[in-house]
């Protein structure tokens, strides 16, 4: 689905990604772990197309297309979704209007007809229920006055509505209490299919107890320095990151 090859990126002349190689296939869940400042959020931002980052080398191929040529919205239309670590508050725009606009713009981008209002409403209700969100959420201003947990849940709600091929969850577990974590993870698990893939970016093992990854990668100093199965996450939980740092010093 996505092939990242020798990806290098910098922000304001500081190189952050120093040659990332990663391949993800449909149906897979990958976890990317690593200490603070290792480049995890940069990687997700570069995949989603944030323009503050300058890609200096390498490529990202998404279902046969060069992703780096596309605007963020075009990437979204192709099926890439990034769940933000810090979702932005947009006062004056309700959740339901926002999601309606996002879905129909994506459809337009793919040359499809807008979704019927009735279908949209039914889908919103279904997905809100999946994430145990009260209906009143839909008429609130996007993220405004939402608690940390509500914001994260709202991100997964949007993911559920947009049905991306590749979802990148950037630190979705941070700031969640155990109940919210369970709901969010439950939501992600229910949305899994053989056609889509999920990348979980996290600092801790915690979320991986609920969403079982097929592969775990350790990102350190702008490179993937170790890859393995779920057992790698447990090893990191036990031993911390110091041994990784020592190995790569």
């Amino acid at each position, binding site marked *: 689905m996505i092939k990242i090859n020798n990806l290098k990126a910098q922000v304001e002349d500081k190189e952050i990604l120093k040659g990332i190689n990663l391949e993800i296939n449909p149906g897979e869940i990958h976890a990317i772990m690593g200490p603070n400042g290792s480049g995890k959020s940069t990687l997700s931002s570069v995949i*989603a*197309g*944030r*323009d*503050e980052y300058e890609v200096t080398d390498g490529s990202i191929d998404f279902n046969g297309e060069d992703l780096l040529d596309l*605007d*963020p*919205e075009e*990437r*979204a*239309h192709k099926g890439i*979704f*990034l769940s*933000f670590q810090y*979702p*932005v508050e*947009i*006062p*004056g*725009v*309700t959740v339901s*209007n*926002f999601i*309606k*606009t*996002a*879905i*129909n*713009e*994506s459809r337009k*981008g793919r040359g499809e007809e*807008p979704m019927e209002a009735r279908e949209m409403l039914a889908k919103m209700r279904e997905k809100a229920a999946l994430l145990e969100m009260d209906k009143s959420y839909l008429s609130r201003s996007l993220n405004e006055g939402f608690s940390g947990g509500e914001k994260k849940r709202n991100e997964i709600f*949007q993911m559920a509505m*947009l049905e991306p091929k590749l979802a990148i969850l950037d630190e979705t577990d941070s700031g969640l209490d155990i109940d919210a974590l369970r709901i969010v993870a439950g939501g992600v698990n229910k949305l899994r299919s053989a056609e889509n893939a999920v990348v979980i970016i996290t600092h801790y093992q915690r979320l991986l107890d609920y969403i079982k990854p097929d592969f775990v990668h350790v990102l350190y100093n702008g490179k993937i320095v170790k890859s393995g199965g779920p057992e790698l996450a447990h090893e990191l939980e036990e031993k911390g990151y110091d041994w990784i740092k020592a190995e790569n010093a």
Partner: protein
Amino acid sequence: MTDLAQDLLSSFVVAEPQLNGSRNLGVVHLRKEALDRFEAQGFPTTRDEEWKYTNLKPVLKQGYRILLKGDDAVSFADIKSYLLSDLDTYKLVFINGKYSSWLSDSTHQEFDVCTFAAALNKYPDIIAEYLGNAAPKGETFVDLNTAFADDGAFIRVKANQTVDKPIEILYLTTNENGPAFSQVRNLIIAEQNAEVQLVERHQNIGEQPSFTNFVSEVFAARDARVSYYKVQNDAEHATLVDNTHVVQKDQSNVHVGTYTFGGKLVRNNLHFYSCGEHAESHMDGITIIGDGQTVDHHTLVDHQEPNCYSRELYKGIYLGKSHGIFNGKVMVRQKAQKTNAFQQNDNILLSDRAKVDTKPQLEIFADDVRCSHGCTIGQLDRNALFYLRSRGIPKHEAEGLMTYAFAADALEYVKIPQLEKRLNRVIAEKLGINLEFTL
């Protein structure tokens, strides 16, 4: 002295005997005094502190003809699009400063929704009591207007009455024979516990530049409620100086909303005089302008009595090479204890060539008050923009959505749904977006 000022002074000699109320000595006296003050002062320049950021020189030099007559050649079809089509309203239409009875829908039944010209002749006592008592003498545009004050809207709502539908006031300029200068004068009186809603609009429907000097005096007696909406979406060759002065008594509630999208130069001098206890003064507005446009909001709230509340919220969105000015003065006099005054002016610059000057000005002489003020000038939040785009909303729409959301809370106090809808539509149009929903 500018040529225009000279022309005005000489045309006064000819015009004065023909003006309505010219047999009313009080009015004659008022006009002559005002003209003398105008003659002494002339038009302001950027050396005047109150006009520091707005240079009138280019717009004053257009070689205006001074219009003292109306125009009969306007049909309802010409003006239909400037009125709220889906709403039953009283209508007062003025052409080149003169009333057009056949385009209007006035009443004298329970309240007066008619013309200032008629009131000058019909109600000398009311004119003597109110005319010139809200708009301050010595303000040069007010004086100039007072000297020629002849026609405009006259609205008087007697005690305990509510005007059953909104009043639309449309001021048209039609002149085809060169640039036109015209003046209009309103007198709006809401007596004790009366209620009225007004929607007004200035529109140049001709091809030539225009300059309108407009004065509106509003009196809200005890417990009166006035909603006054100004839709400023004039042609790109139109200049407007709007002088609106509001006097409020105890427990009255007045809202003036100013929505500015058009015109070459718009200067709003909006003053509230809070002269009774527990009065509420609301003023808010949205400005969205682009290339070659200047909008200058000069506001004053003068708190003279204790226990009053004022709220001021102005949002500005500037595209292209445009210039916005906000000067918000809040005066709290020594006697006006327990005043609660709020002021906020937020601006977004969507272009490198747009410019905003914003200045809060607080003068507080009482010691037990709550006054807050703030002003911001910024650009759209990049992070938020990326957030929207990452969800599939294209850049242009994402910018529009955010700008829209930024402006929308200044529409909160619009009580006429049809007007709100229309304003929403104009805003979407100005921002070049086609959103499938209203916020």
